[in-house]
Structures are given as C-alpha cells and as structure tokens.
C-alpha cells in the first residue's frame, strides 16, 4: 500500500531538471515563465529539481557545444531511470543556425534518445506545457514497462 502511494504521487508530480547546453537563453526564459504564476506548471506537479538525481524529466535547451558535451553526458548519467528527455526549441533537435560550427557537437539525438521534441524558436510557454504534459504520459508508460 505504501509503495502504491509513492507510485501514485511520483506519477502526479514529475520533477524537471533543466540543462542549458549552449542555448541563447530564449528557451530558458520561456521555461522559467512556465513555472511562474502566470502559466503555473506546478498545477500539474512540475517542480524544478535542484539536482539531476531527483529528476524525472530532463529538459535540454541549446545545441550541444563542445564545452557542454561532457557535462551533459555526466548529468544525464545521474538521472535515475525511468527518465524522459525533452528537447526544448529547434537547437537540441537540429542545432538550428549553429549547425556546422566548429564548437557544436551535433544534435542531442547523438547522445541520448529524445522522447519529446517541442519545436519553436522559442516555443510559446503553452507549447512547453504541452510538451511537458506529453512527457509525463511517456513517463507513465515507461514506469509500467519497468514493473513488468
């Protein structure tokens, strides 16, 4: 019964961890706007976690730069399974206008499987909420798959 209580509460409150891998800050500002009272993502239980070890959903913004590549891999390794990776904006999906740069290590798909991609440059906060909501549903499926 105690286990069920934990399972229910974790499903209702996915914690998000945000990594900026060389983003222009546009997407980061929109993600913060999502957590403010105006859009209030905490209605759905989303909470910004302080450390990747507490997170369920990892939100990545920015093309992966050479400097941030090592840190991204290290951070993603610390996130407990099941985890869900959300790419915020065009950059992590395709490197956007930075593609081909000497300091960009290619799209996020090279390092980890991206579960949800939110397109836009930058996405509207409503679109970010939509993406995060989709991520929780994927997270539920992954949890059920892990039980079996």
């Amino acid at each position, binding site marked *: 019964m105690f286990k069920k209580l934990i399972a229910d509460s974790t499903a209702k409150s996915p914690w998000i961890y945000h990594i900026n891998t060389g983003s222009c800050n546009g997407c980061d500002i929109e993600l913060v706007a999502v957590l403010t009272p105006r*859009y209030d993502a905490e209605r759905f239980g989303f909470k910004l976690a302080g450390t990747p070890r507490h997170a369920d959903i990892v939100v990545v913004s920015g093309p992966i730069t050479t400097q941030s590549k090592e840190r991204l891999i290290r951070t993603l390794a610390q996130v407990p399974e099941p985890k869900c990776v959300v790419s915020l904006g065009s950059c992590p999906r395709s490197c956007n206008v930075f593609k081909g740069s000497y300091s960009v290590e290619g799209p996020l798909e090279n390092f980890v499987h991206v579960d949800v*991609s939110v397109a836009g440059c930058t996405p509207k906060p409503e679109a970010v909420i939509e993406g995060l909501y989709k991520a929780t549903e994927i997270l539920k499926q992954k949890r059920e798959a892990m039980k079996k």
Partner: protein
Amino acid sequence: MKFPFLKQAIPNLFSKPSTVLFPKVNVDAKPNYRGRLAYDPEKCINCGMCIKVCSPGAITRTFEEVEGGERITYEFDMTSCTFCATCEDFCSEKAIHMTQDYHMVATDPAELIVRGTRIKKKVLGQLTCGEECIFCGLCARSCPENAITVDRASKSWSVDTEKCVKCGICISKCPKKCLSFAEPAEEGVNCSDACIYCTLCAKKCPTGAIEVDRAAKSWTINREDCTKCGTCVAACPKKALSIGPIVEKAPAPAEGASPAEAPAPVEAAAEKVEAAAEAVAEKVGEKAEAAVERIAEKADEAVEAPKTEE
C-alpha cells in the same frame, strides 16, 4: 490605524487568479506570431529563393521523375526552423505563410516536417508523323477532334495544330508506330532591345543565372541555372524580358533590318578580324626581328668585353 494595501487586497480576494488555464482553455497566439509554416505547392514556381535565404538550411527540395512530368517536393523542417519568416518575405508568389499555430509538440520529429508536393507537367510538342507512314488513315478516323487529314492518293498527312488536343489516341491506334509528339521548343528568358542594362534582373535572380555588364552593354544568361521562375521578368523596369522560345544572340535584330541583310555584318566582322590578325602577325614579326638583332649585338659586346680587359 492604516492598512496600506487594503484597497488592492480586498478585491483580489474575490477576483480570479491571473493564471492562464491553458490546457482547458485554448489560447490563440497574437496576430503577428510566427508559428508553423504553411506551404501552398500550387502557387510555388520552384524558384528556390526560400532555400537560398534560409539561414538554418531547414528547407530541402527533391525531384522525382514520374509519368507525364516531374514531381517536386518541398520539405520545411520545423525542428530546424528559426521562424524568421525570411522565406515568406522573399517568396514572390506568396506560397509560404507563417501561421499562428504554435502546437508543435511531437514524439516523432518526422511529424514536425511540413511537406508540399506538386507535379510539373511535361509540355508536349506538336504531333508529327514519321517516314514509315503507310497513310492508312486510322489516325484520322480515331481522332476525336477531326484534326488529322490523310490523303491516300497523294500520300499526304497533315494535322491542324489548333484543333489537336494532344490526347494521344492516334498514337495508340497507329499500326506503324510512326506518330509521336515532338520535343517542344526549349523555353527560356529572352532580353529585348529595350534593355538599359540596369542589372536589376541579375540582382533579383534566385539562382544567379543572369550576368549583366553595364560597361560592355552585354546581357547574358546561363540556361542551365535558369529555372524560368519569372522573377526577373517581374523585376525588369523596361519590360524588356520575356519567357518564350529561346532566341540566341540576346539583342534581337531591329524591326527595320530584314533577315537578308543579317549576314552582311558577319562578313564585315570576319574581314576586320582577318585584317587585324595580319596586322598583329606583321607587328610580331617586326618585333621578333628587332629582338634577335638586339640579342646578337649584346652577344657580340659580351664576347668582345673580356678581350678588351685583357
């Protein structure tokens, strides 16, 4: 006793929260918001300007040969787009439009690609009859428009090009398979005498096919690069450009000059070239002789010099 924010605090107790109830209530984006791109392949003239101006290179096009033409597919990758709308600004036919749709969330990125396909029909030329014709008249009988006339006695075959609808029934009925549609005359951009060499067409050309030299008063076009999009025709301030069967030697002969007189300048030019060549040959010969003499003198001096020293 004074409560500083009482005026604001009491109404706030009874008013709604300022939170946007997004998933329950759909929120429309503001009028000038640039969201998902919409592409109308029917309007597109395949000039490729959008591909040229796209800074993240999010637009690709593919060509595929299909029966009766060419299938042209444009793909706009929304996961690579910066939503700058430069493509929309540069599209001369307004085939690209940025919508207010911001719901671009997908687990599969292929869902975020906007596609548009159209088939560019191959233009058929005139109906022609080959030498193997036996003048059986089957084509004339099968023609729904009665455009073909065959006379067995005088062994003549003719087609009324205005009546012919290029349906191809006669080709399928022909026992000798000698009927066919001719290759159409190749079309391209032509420049007339009205040209003032302003270079506007060269600046507007999305493929950079046109070259204009103001000093030399020359207008040239690279036919391989030209997509016949018509951007230059629209840009020309003198309406000197037109799309039609290719006329080589860009400035067409003036209205007064008759075709019979046309060869004369060519001959005159040939004579001039010959005269110039002779003159050059003479000059070269003179100079070469002078140079040989000078070298010989110098050699003599060089040979004599050591002797005088001794």
